[in-house]
């Protein structure tokens, strides 16, 4: 099941995306316009920040339909909270926080569904693969991502933010609502676990 969500990379129409972000408006201006009911402004915000949200969500859940749903849900929550958003933490940080929380909830649901033997909604690999072609990651990266997916959610979130997104320890701690010491210890433990998981393959090399 872990393998099902890996190495499926969609083709992003970067030309279209870049064309639309060229408006040069700041987040604050876009938010103000979106608050006044300008849907196009909110669409610009989505285009501007979707890659960061994708990095977080796909890092946490793997590349699968659920990740797309959680990504959408992240922006919907943001849209619903526009009136309350004061801009103290920045749009990107705010979105990452929502994305992390929703991803953690989704992992909890996955665990529960596995336990209850319920079918996973939207986890039809065939449907997703028909829509998006595979990207051939190198073997090492593939193994590493598989290993990351085997980590417990609390370790995985730290690995995604620190290792994959290259955020600082301080930033990671703030996003997850834990102390910097906890971030460091979780990352060290995650490294040990990753090493253990990858040891058989490293041995082969």
């Amino acid at each position, binding site marked *: 099941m872990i393998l099902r969500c890996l190495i499926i990379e969609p083709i992003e129409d970067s030309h279209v995306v870049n064309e639309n972000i060229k408006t040069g408006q700041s987040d604050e201006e876009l938010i103000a316009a979106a608050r006044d009911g300008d849907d196009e402004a*909110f669409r610009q915000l*989505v285009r501007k920040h979707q890659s960061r949200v994708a990095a977080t969500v796909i*890092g946490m859940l793997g590349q699968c339909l659920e990740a797309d749903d959680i990504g959408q*849900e992240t922006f*919907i929550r943001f849209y619903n909270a526009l009136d309350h958003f004061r801009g103290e933490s920045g749009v990107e940080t705010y979105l990452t926080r929502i994305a992390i929380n929703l991803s953690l909830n989704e992992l909890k*649901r996955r665990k*529960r569904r596995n336990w209850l033997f319920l079918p996973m909604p939207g986890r039809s690999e065939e449907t997703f693969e028909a829509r998006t072609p595979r990207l051939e990651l190198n073997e090492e990266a593939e193994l*590493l991502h598989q290993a990351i997916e085997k980590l417990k959610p609390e370790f995985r979130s730290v690995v995604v933010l620190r290792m994959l997104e290259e955020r600082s320890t301080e930033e990671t701690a703030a996003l997850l609502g834990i102390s910097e010491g906890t971030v460091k210890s979780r990352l060290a433990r995650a490294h040990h676990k990753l090493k253990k998981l990858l040891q058989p393959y490293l041995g082969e090399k």
Partner: protein
Amino acid sequence: MDKKVTDLLYRSCQSALSDEEQKWLDEALARSGALRKEKELIDSFFKTARSSHEPSFAPFFDDRVMKKIKAGGDDSSLLEPFLDALEYVFRRVAAAGVVFALAVIVLNLGSSETISLANAFGIPEAKLADVFDPFYLLNP
């Protein structure tokens, strides 16, 4: 491998070490081939993870988001909130149940003369022969 040195090695990947710690680590790295190999491995983890992590959502993601917003946002079923609520209630009921069971066990053991599993659970002690005895069944 010395755990302290290994911890220092992992910490060095996350944040800058103090001068003294860095010097100590450098010396340890110069001495130990195994430690150098470990460092290479950690560096490789970071490098591989970063280089391979440039994910994006499927095309027309913004269209899907806007469509959902127009449709009224959250279209998730009621099953998940129900299961969340069920789990919340179950945890509290289970915790209260365990506390209650422990209290009963302590009370039973306190009021009995000997410590046994049967006494702990308040089960009347009976021999196998008694169980099949019709008189015992009628008046245990």
